[in-house]
């Protein structure tokens, strides 16, 4: 699938801002065999005082901005052309869950894709006993690790209600789980917590999702979204698999990857705050158009 991808984020401020630094992770990733980027541009308006780029530990392209003070509005516009290969249904080569620990012990190295990064608690995903209990019950009887991933994802999808008003960007996962509602970020971080409690290394993936219109209706501009899902390690042969608990499916051609990390704090689209005296309003829109 070849897409024209655009993301537009706008802020308006009541009062002029102070100086600020931000790091953006909003560009689609080049992932051999999965996703190919032929062009990607990020425009910032007004122009930043300084702009640098680096690749973070997990391989994600990060854009660092120093913004001047005195802004009353701010825009980030990303446009890209990206090809997402549909890998189709995969054969389940994963080990049974009890065998996963041995596979993991055989993995050495601490490169960006090493499963070892994704088993320990991370800043936004502490151990939550209620989630661990839920996960253990949900995967009972699953013959393989991949089946367990799917079972937990489907169980969460049945249990949690998607509600953009229910949680904030920094709602802790235990609170979101207790309320049984949230957005893709909450679904994904709760699922990561559950997988880790089972001994399955799990990462948080940030990206974009194409939203298909209901049959017979035209596609609405800007209806696509920034999205998050889960990447789980299913053993030496099974490798990594991407699962989207918000939609109860393995990630496919509609999912465009930006990058992954231990949780939202590693992969957030924008990190860093502006110094504000007054209120701000913001909006963002995503278009993922097949070409």
């Amino acid at each position, binding site marked *: 699938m070849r897409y024209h991808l655009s993301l537009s984020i706008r802020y308006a401020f009541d009062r002029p801002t102070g100086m600020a630094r931000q790091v953006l992770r909003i560009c689609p990733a080049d992932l051999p065999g999965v996703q190919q980027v032929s062009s990607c541009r990020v425009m910032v308006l007004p122009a930043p005082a300084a702009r640098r780029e680096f690749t973070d*530990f997990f391989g994600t392209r990060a854009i660092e901005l120093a913004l001047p003070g005195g802004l009353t509005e701010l825009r980030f516009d990303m446009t890209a052309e990206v090809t997402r290969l549909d890998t189709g249904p995969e054969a389940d080569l994963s080990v049974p869950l009890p065998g996963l620990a041995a596979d993991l012990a055989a993995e050495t190295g*601490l490169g960006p894709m090493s499963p070892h990064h994704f088993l320990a608690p991370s800043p936004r995903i502490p151990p939550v006993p209620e989630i661990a209990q839920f996960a253990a019950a949900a995967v009972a009887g699953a013959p393989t690790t991949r089946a367990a991933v799917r079972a937990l994802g489907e169980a969460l999808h049945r249990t949690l209600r998607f509600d953009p008003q229910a949680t904030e960007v920094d709602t802790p996962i235990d609170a979101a789980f207790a309320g049984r509602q949230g957005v893709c970020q909450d679904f994904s971080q709760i699922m990561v917590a559950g997988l880790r409690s089972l001994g399955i290394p799990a990462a948080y993936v940030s990206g974009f999702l194409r939203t298909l219109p209901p049959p017979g209706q035209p596609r609405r501009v800007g209806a696509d979204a920034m999205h998050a899902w889960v990447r789980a390690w299913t053993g030496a042969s099974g490798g990594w698999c991407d699962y989207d608990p918000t939609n109860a499916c393995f990630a496919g051609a509609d999912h465009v990857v930006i990058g992954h990390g231990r949780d939202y704090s590693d992969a957030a689209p924008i990190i*860093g705050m502006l110094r504000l005296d007054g209120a701000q309003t913001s909006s963002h829109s995503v278009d993922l158009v097949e070409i």
Partner: protein
Amino acid sequence: MSAAAPDDHAPLTAPPRGLSGYAPLPGVPDEAVAPDGTIRPLWARLAGHLAGLAPDDLASALARADQYLNDSGVFYRQYGAGSSTERPWPLSHVPVLLEQSDWDAISEALVQRADLLEALMADLYGPNRLVASGRLPPALVAGNPEWLRPMVGIAPRSGHYLHFVAFELGRGPDGKWWVLADRAQAPSGAGYALENRVATSRAFSGLYASQHVHRLAGFFRDFRDALMGQRQDGETRVSILTPGPLNETYFEHAWIARYLGFNLVQGEDMMVEQGQLKLRTVAGPRPVEVLWRRLDSSYADPIELDQNSRIGTPGLVSALRAGGLSMVNALGSGVLETRALMAFLPQLAPDLTGAPLKMPNLATWWCGDPLASAAVQAAPERLILSPALATGMPFDLPGADQCRAGDLAPADLAQRLAAEGAGLVAQEAVTLSTTPALVDGRLVPRPVTIRVFVARTARGWVVMPGGFARIGARPDPEAIAMQRGGSSADVWVVSPEPVSQTSMIPVANAPLRRATPGALPARAADNLFWLGRYVERTEGMVRLLRACHMRLAESGSAAAPLLEAAAPLFTLQGIEPDEAIPQGLLDTLSLAISSAGRVRDRFSPDAWSALADLEKSARRMALRSQPGDDAARALSALLRKLAGISGLIHENMYRFTGWRFLTIGRQHERAMGLAAALAVLADPGAAEGALDLAIEYGDSVMTHRRRFALAASRPTVIDLLALDPLNPRSLRHQIDGLREEIDLLPAANDHGALSPLACTVLRLHADLATQDPATLTTRRLWALRSRIGHISDQITAAYFH
């Protein structure tokens, strides 16, 4: 020697002197006394010295040390339920003595260990070969919150990750020294060690001078030179990054900054511009090239490290990536303190340093390894279980997550090891040697650990020849922690030969170079300005209160109309004049203290003690002084103390920019006070006697008498207190001073081009200088006051951001 523990009951007779009557604990090695009960030769002179002191002489020796600590303002912060307080420094007066030969072996072993930590750090933040080759378990690194992924691949500009490390040592039952913990994050205690040295040498000055005790100053000088040598631009200053005044060891940060001549900065004082870390100063942003970090790594950058940090500098990691900054130690060095790593260091040493460990560390088993786990299960008796990724010594502030493995039923232990093995570490329960400590006038054996500091210099690692000893409050090792009543002691490394008498003073024939002062950090300027204002505000209040209480004492209720006339001035400052020492006055003093506390590094210890003493006296007086004569006398005493502080500042403080801000603050506040006092008390409608009150407030009674030789009238008072440039208490004199000092501030007067602030002051000056007593009406005085007030805002906007 008696075998009974001597400190359990009070002596029936006069306490024994020196080490007579001192008995080590059965089966526990003692630093001073050999197992056969004889005093070790090294300790003989100290024992003799102590034995020769009559109880009164000993008491005064200890008092000398305590007085020194008190005068230098050394404290530590103790945390209680929801609050923290500054506590006097708990010094255990008897030093711990170490033989030169013992010391040489310790030094050699610790230099090797510092090399080992550097090599480990370079691998963990570089190629990560140790994990890849299976020599370190991945879980200890990948699951470690102190292993900071953003730092992986960022090579240190200086070529080294570690520059200042410390090791906790204890002597085991076999008489050998062991490493109990590695400190590589941001070790504290070196400054305290130096304070302990000065205090202890005051207590035992004769003994100290006659023994060949290694001096500590050379170590600090070498490290200072090493840090300064890391700069590429000689104009920049080395900065010490502190979490701030509420940190447990802030005193030490300020102390070291002052001692070595470094800037003391907080995260918010700095910014990153074009990849370069810069300090906000009164002369604009200035590059920082060398930062000695006393802040835990993860707090250092809220963008790339802990996003919840409120005390970091956004972009700091980016500045490190750009390579324009040397960080001491590199961010992420806290990972080296991980307890479970001690299980692996002995095996890694030969490979990473070319030799087996020269000093063993605490026997440690990481329970994620099946063999280690089985060993713990098989012989749990003397093992402490704690979290594998915890740092520090296992008996130091033990948490609820720590227990003796032997206390668990075998089945429970097996279950725990199976369930959370990789998260657990087992370490041998520590036994420590004891050292003599004075408790209620008698020497008793107390457990001791020693923190030894190792710094990287141009000549390689150097070890501070001494250390920071911690002495337990009770005979068990758990009582070492200062938060739990433990104390600290000096460590004397005694050489058989004379030692070099190094100090920070440069060698005689080195060329004299006057260091340029460097730009003043904006936050320091802000605090100095306000310190000046609060001290002056206090003085103004005290003068006015004293004048009123004197009237009250002289005329009783007949003074009421006059006091009524002064009421608006009290209202302006928010104080209740009915009290002898009003709460508003104490509050202002507290503000002065807290401003001074934030610039401890720029404030002389004498000035600090004087200010602290002033506050203490005022609080004491507030409790017992009665309005009237009693209050007037108390207030006079406070005025004398204030005069002392002014003297210390005016006579002793070098005329750097910092002094300038302090002075501007004082002049500004005095000008505000005078304008208000004259507007109220020299108003044509003011009560009888108000003019005299004004003269007294302006401390100009004698001058008025001499200059006018007649009763006060509005014109004489206005002339003397508002217009006379030669009266140091006049409004005009303050404005003259403000104009002069503000003109000398950075960017105020660029070859005649005046900054907006300098313009404001110049206009104010011209307006005041062209007044006469008739034209300077009450209304004008109020208008002047509000224009003076505006200067404060302009200074803030121009220099404190």
